[in-house]
């Protein structure tokens, strides 16, 4: 191969190439081979294959790093970097995409919108996420972000006949485009300072400048606006409840987990890369944002009666906890974010999967009252939901506790005692609204008795998320070792 596309270059993007190829394959096969809508669930095989190949690519990347004994491998003149951090996050995307695809076919059939494009959108979005986690160049990162976001704009509006879905997509698109504008503005300033789009050069350029340099400050704030929008941190969270509520529940699950994880990875790349030396500037800003996010997310969740909105606000508050890990910024904090993202993936996906199961032909199944007396009809689902909610709240011995544990510990290590106290007290607030769902499920009498929709994929996905949520809580050692590999530098 030419010097512009070497084997190393290829090696660094193999997983993304696989995702793109299989995404295209789905589009073609959907058209040619499966014209009958009832056969479309066979497209799932392509998703599974795509994730297998992606996973294999990731496995080879980490094996190569281990065998060479190097921490990272750069391709395309430093635009893409394979390192433990990126690989860790990419595994999370693989798991999230697989689980979401597994549960989607039944949901889309019930909703009457089962189209093959859906699966390719999942893969294309994941391709974007790959570059968010592994990109080390402003342009690469931006393209990754937009690829992911575009796929999500379409997926959020996937229920064409549903007004809420359309409204949500429009709102998400407009606000998302607006925030991308801010982000690009910040990027242009960084490029102006460094004369290069590579993160390493930008880092060096910003280190040259003195503290409170106005250009750095402007670049920092504009970039932060764009990034905070993506992780739905307050005050840029307004899109999240509407988008989460309107989108098909499977997409909500994907959006709340994978998109958030990718954006967090992106955020870490930027704040621990170029802006690492500007810490004095962003620490107070992010602290304020984190407190605001925790407050708004937790307090607004209390009064929600729609489960998806409630979980949307809860996911806003989780973004606040992840930000706290960045504010602490030591090794425990970064590892804590990795652990947090990992456990959040399983528990939040699990909670949304139960909501997916509530969707039946005539019943939307998203209201708090729809959960009334669930334990009588489907004790299995009710107890799984209980585990997910306890985990979201951070009660041991569930996985969620581990995530919060690391965040709190990092705050204490870096002597952010006030933040630690605020963050812990919001755990008690959170349990209040999570237990509103528990109360409906276990204490209230049932109001309607139609059986839940269920499919093999859904049961499998629920089983996996449920078992992992408990397993990570009870015996976390292997998972913590895994997260250890992700620590940047």
């Amino acid at each position, binding site marked *: 191969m030419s010097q512009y596309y070497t084997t190393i270059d290829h090696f660094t993007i193999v997983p993304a190439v696989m995702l793109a190829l299989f995404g295209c394959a789905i589009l073609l096969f959907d058209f040619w081979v499966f014209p009958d809508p009832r056969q479309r669930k066979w497209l799932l095989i392509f998703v599974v294959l795509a994730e297998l190949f992606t996973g294999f690519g990731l496995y080879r990347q980490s094996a190569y790093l281990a065998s060479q004994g190097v921490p990272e491998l750069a391709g395309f003149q430093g635009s893409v970097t394979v390192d433990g951090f990126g690989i860790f996050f990419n595994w999370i995307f693989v798991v999230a995409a697989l689980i979401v695809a597994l549960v989607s076919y039944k949901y889309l059939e019930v909703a009457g919108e089962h189209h093959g494009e859906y699966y390719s959108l999942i893969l294309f979005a994941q391709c974007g996420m790959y570059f968010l986690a592994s990109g080390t160049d402003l342009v690469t990162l931006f393209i990754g972000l937009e690829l992911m976001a575009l796929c999500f704009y379409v997926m959020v509006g996937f229920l064409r006949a549903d007004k809420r879905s359309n409204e949500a997509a429009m709102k998400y698109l407009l606000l998302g485009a607006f925030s991308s504008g801010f982000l690009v503005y910040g990027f242009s300033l960084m490029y102006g300072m460094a004369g290069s789009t590579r993160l390493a050069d930008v880092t060096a350029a910003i280190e040259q400048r003195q503290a409170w340099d106005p250009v750095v400050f402007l670049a920092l704030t504009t970039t932060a606006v764009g990034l905070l929008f993506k992780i739905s941190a307050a005050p840029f969270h307004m899109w999240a409840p509407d988008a989460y509520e309107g989108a098909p529940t499977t997409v909500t699950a994907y959006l709340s987990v994978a998109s958030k994880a990718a954006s967090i990875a992106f955020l870490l790349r930027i704040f621990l890369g170029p802006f690492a030396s500007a810490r004095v500037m962003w620490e107070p800003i992010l602290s304020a944002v984190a407190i605001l996010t925790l407050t708004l997310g937790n307090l607004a969740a209390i009064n929600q009666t729609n489960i998806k909105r409630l979980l949307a606000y809860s996911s806003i508050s989780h973004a606040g906890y992840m930000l706290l890990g960045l504010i602490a910024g030591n090794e425990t904090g970064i590892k804590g974010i990795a652990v947090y993202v990992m456990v959040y993936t399983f528990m939040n996906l699990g909670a949304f999967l139960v909501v997916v199961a509530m969707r039946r032909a005539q019943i939307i199944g998203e209201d708090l009252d729809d959960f009334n007396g669930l334990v009588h009809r489907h004790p299995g689902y009710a107890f799984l939901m209980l585990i997910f909610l306890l985990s979201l709240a951070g*009660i041991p011995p569930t996985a969620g506790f581990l995530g919060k544990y690391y965040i709190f*510990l990092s705050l204490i290590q870096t002597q952010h005692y006030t933040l*630690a106290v605020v963050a812990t007290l919001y755990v008690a607030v959170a349990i*209040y609204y999570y*237990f509103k769902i528990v*109360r409906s499920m276990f204490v209230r009498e049932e109001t309607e008795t139609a059986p839940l929709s269920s499919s093999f994929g859904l049961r499998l996905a629920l089983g996996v998320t449920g078992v992992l949520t408990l397993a990570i809580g009870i015996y976390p050692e292997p998972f913590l070792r895994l997260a*250890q590999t992700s620590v940047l530098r």
Partner: protein
Amino acid sequence: MDQHLLSIVLLTPLAGLAVLLFIPGESKNLIRWWANLTAFAGFLISLPLVSRFQVGAPGFQFEERADWIPSLGAHYHIGIDGISLLLLMLTTLMGFIAILCSWNGIQDRVKEYYAMFLLLQTGMIGVFVSLDFFLFYIFWELVLVPMYFIIGVWGGPRKLYAAIKFFLYTLAGSVLMLLGILTLYFQHYNQFHFYTFEIAELMKTDLPLGLQQWVFWAFFVGFAIKVPMFPFHTWLPDAHVEAPTAGSVILAAVLLKMGTYGFLRFSLPLLPKASMDRTIVQALAILSLVGIIYGALVCLMQQDWKKLVAYSSVSHLGFCTLGIFSMNPNGIAGSVIQQVNHGISTGMLFMVIGVIYERRHTREIAEYGGLAHVMPKFATIFAFAMLSSAGLPLLNGFIGEFTILQGAFEASRTWAAFAVSGVILGAAYLLWLYQRTMLGQVTNGKNLTIPDMSLREIATFVPLIAWAIWIGVYPKPYFDILRQPVAEIVQRVRPGYYGGTTQLAREGPAAKPALSGGAR
């Protein structure tokens, strides 16, 4: 077998729970039998702990230790000393009795009920045997969920409010405690450069007084809410009144002791300087005294039988914390004995209420009167429970209160003077309760036809009455069991206390390496 005895005791309820899940929900009697058998087996299995416990041996016994989460330095490390032995036996016995006394009271969702109870049982045992702070915290939190369901699903009219209040209160306390734990954990790392949650290791950390005070207050919030001490007690009456009988019994008898146990096992030995800090000791003693007197006064005002007993818990637990913060052997030993006593007496009082509530479905004191004529057996047992709670000599309550008062007197005569008034008030509200409900003529026609207690109901009281008399008449074994662990705590908090003349002082230094010996 012997070296895993404690694990077996810990896991018996869990194993029973696993089997219980496979029994179909319709066969209610089978579920009841199985749950009762499991709980009884749990109690029987814990008995060898008593016979094989070496009285006076320093440090912990029946220790088991295994790595659990090496990256965090968390271990599966369990073991008991005299203090935990008594509370553990209280737990296994009260757990069995609570399960036994819900035979008729619980009629719907029987399977879930017993499942929750067995889970709760494991959590409580775990709290008392953990020697690793991480493990302790897991069990500590594990208790919340089943208790939430026991109150929230099988409770009274305001059960949802009471259940979530209980949950939020205790959770808020325990997350703040978690911050304290993490601070300690991190400080230990700073000094020794490895992470561990083991208590014996953490005790080696040398913390400056200022930091100790902060950590102490963090622990205090967690433990004081659980006890509950005076300003944090408001969840207790709600939880007690709304909980089903067995829930109240276990809540009063065991759950509250987790708080006092926390003070003894963690606050005092881990933060000796803060525990001897004048301000802190004064503050806690005053809060205890306020709790004793305020709780008793509120009892005098109650119209509701169950609420009265609930507030009496506030008063009695005030004695326990006062004893702890007297910081002398009498106070602390008395406190532990009083914790056991409170478990026995208040447990019995709640069971008494359960018996009458199942028959009349009201707890208004004014609804009753002259019951002794209708239900002589019931009246006798109630008299027993009431007198043991009021501290009649030759019954258990007297021993505990007397020893605590001795300890308090040694620490400060003022404290003792105030505390004594609590004893008097305690006798007053209990006797008055008895008078209003049991004595005189039957004023309410509905009470004329109440059946007296059945044999099964009486059987649930027999072990408790026997235990109450044993402690009241011959408490020496209890003091023997407690002498060594209490001496270790006092030695740790007040190194010069024994002064080198008594026999205990000679044991003191020898005991110290043994205490930390569990670390390796």
